[in-house]
């Protein structure tokens, strides 16, 4: 049941920084907190989280630098820590730091985080690097497409950091309400999600985002301990129809493949 034990109690309001490795996440963290930070080993896991704080409008925001990850499907201890932190601590604001020079890959994580929470700000960092390489990011289009606020920064020169703090404050205080554009996974998957959600809600009663849990099961990620238990239980308990449900949807590969790619012109 260690899934339900949060990693200690963090002061509120709590801001989490997520992002791919090498996006300058820690530079932003350092720029926001200065030297007011300490690192700690949180319960059970040996991955370290750096914690610090900054003031805006006389509110002390606690800010946590999550380990750099490519996704939130727990493939590694870092990803598990990042995922569990977001799911369990339910930070008041999550800032996803992205690298302007390879935004496309970085958006993958953004879209995943958007599945879990509404309170998200996308920070496109390293715009100075991108400019040098002739890459320009249009924040208003990006913001419109994603449905969440977008801030452009160059952490090294301090560009955009004030705006980032302001946006964190606005999202926290509810002045701005992000409305993430969720992905429609296609008929089949959406049907599966809809069928799974009642079971998950029944079992976890509000402790976890049911849509996310359903997606996890479908993509075969059982790293959330109790999900695995739930699946096992249903396997033993044949009378329940859950078993059939899981069976059908969890060999995810077929489902994941079918609605999406059509191999054009190629013959294998």
């Amino acid at each position, binding site marked *: 049941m260690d899934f339900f034990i949060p990693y200690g109690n963090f002061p509120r309001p709590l801001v989490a920084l997520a992002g791919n490795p090498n996006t300058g996440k820690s530079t932003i963290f350092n720029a926001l907190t200065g030297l007011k930070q300490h690192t700690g080993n949180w319960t059970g896991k040996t991955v370290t989280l750096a914690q610090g704080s900054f003031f805006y409008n006389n509110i002390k925001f606690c800010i946590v630098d999550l380990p750099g990850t490519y996704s939130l499907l727990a493939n590694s201890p870092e990803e598990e820590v990042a995922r569990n932190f977001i799911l369990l601590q339910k930070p008041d604001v999550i800032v996803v730091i992205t690298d302007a020079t390879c935004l*496309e890959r970085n958006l993958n994580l953004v879209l995943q985080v958007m599945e879990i929470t509404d309170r998200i700000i996308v920070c496109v960092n390293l715009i100075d690097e991108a400019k040098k390489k002739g*890459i320009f990011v249009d924040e208003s289009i990006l913001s419109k497409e994603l449905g969440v606020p977008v801030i452009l920064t160059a952490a090294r020169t301090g560009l955009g950091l004030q705006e980032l703090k302001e946006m964190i404050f606005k999202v926290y205080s509810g002045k701005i309400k992000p409305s993430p554009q969720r*992905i429609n996974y296609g008929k089949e998957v959406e049907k599966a999600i809809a069928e799974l959600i009642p079971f998950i809600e029944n079992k976890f009663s509000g402790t976890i985002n049911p849509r996310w849990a359903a997606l996890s099961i479908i993509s075969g990620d059982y790293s959330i301990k109790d999900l695995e238990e739930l699946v096992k239980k249903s396997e033993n308990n044949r009378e329940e129809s859950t078993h059939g449900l899981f069976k059908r949807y969890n060999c995810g590969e077929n489902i994941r493949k079918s609605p*999406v790619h059509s191999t054009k012109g190629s013959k294998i």
Partner: protein
Amino acid sequence: MEKIYEKAQCIAQKAVRYDKFQEDIDKKIDLLLTSKATGILSMLLLLSVIFWLTLVGANYPSQLLAKILFVIEGYLERFLHQIGLPGVVNDFLVDGMYRTMAWVVSVMLPPLAIFFPLFTFLEELGYLPRIAFNLDYFFKKAGTQGKQALAMSMGFGCNAVGVTCCRIINSPRERMIAILTNSFVPCNGRFPTLMLLAYLFIGGIMPNLGRMLASLAVAGLVVFGILITLLVSKLLSSTFLKGLPSSFILELPPYRVPHIGHIIIRSIYERTLLVLGRAIAVAAPAGGIIWLLANIKFENQNLLANAAALLDPLGRLAGLDGYILLAFIAGSPANEIVLPILLMGYLAQGTMVSPDELTGLKELLESYGWTTLTAINTMLFSLLHFPCATTLWTIKSETGGARWAVFAAVLTTSLAFLVCFLTSSLYRLFSWIIKL
């Protein structure tokens, strides 16, 4: 998953505008650092330059620090005398604890304060993954993978950190091998010792090019350590930890010009002071204990000499001597204090020379029977011997069992003896042939 990417691509295409694609600079640097002609060469050159800079840069501040600390020693002695401490206690505090500590600070701080920023610079630049990329082929042959090289690079700073860094390796088997072999990379606790010995004994061959020769020797030693790592990895992956190499997927991040202020804060504040603090915390009590051992007489000989005499036959076999082995054993809490303990053991009066007498150091060692061979063997032993206590503790907690820590200690130490025995046997053989 694919759906998410489809959307990401769609959004990115709308929001991102590419004017002209300019990643030629990155590619050119990468070709220079990884191509057939220049890949290995640039890696070795970089290594030697770092050592050279550290050696040259550390020389003057080291002497200055030693002078300052020596002056403070005089004040401290007078102060302790004035408050009426008995002579023995005074000697224990000043000659035992203070001198060992002063030695560690003056010999270690300057090289650390130069090496760590240089290393952090490479790290922030994005060079380290290229090392893994370059060396993956060799590690694959040894049954592991290039990420081991990343953990090894971190080992230059501190082997305990290097062992922790092995977490980036996904395969448990390859991770275990990387953990067990990490101490074959000389950490910062051992660098000052290696550099000093290389400078005195190998650099001494050609006084004009002394520093250059010494840095090449240390770089050569590091390469030897890498070869040993590969060899032992191969050995482990074909015996205790059998298995096929897994996959190797590594992102090579774009090069980034590091932020100088950030480097200095990170390397000095988070690394140098941390490592130095630990060394001092260990050096002071260890210095005190060694002073006691050196001054308590047992059958007309001090305890230190007794212990050294016991270890002497074993040491001689490996081209070392009893005092050297004793210093390595006593230095197991932190490798920084090996040399000061050794010197304290050699000096009959039971106190260390003060660290500003570096020039006289070579004569002192030679008067205790040191030759170039002894120096080389001591360097090899330092490179290969059992990991320090902190590293062993980290191995235990990372592998979840004391037996792997014990295994690591036995494996490395027996290898250290074997290599030292071989070099001294070869040396003896050659000198015997030359005599004929």
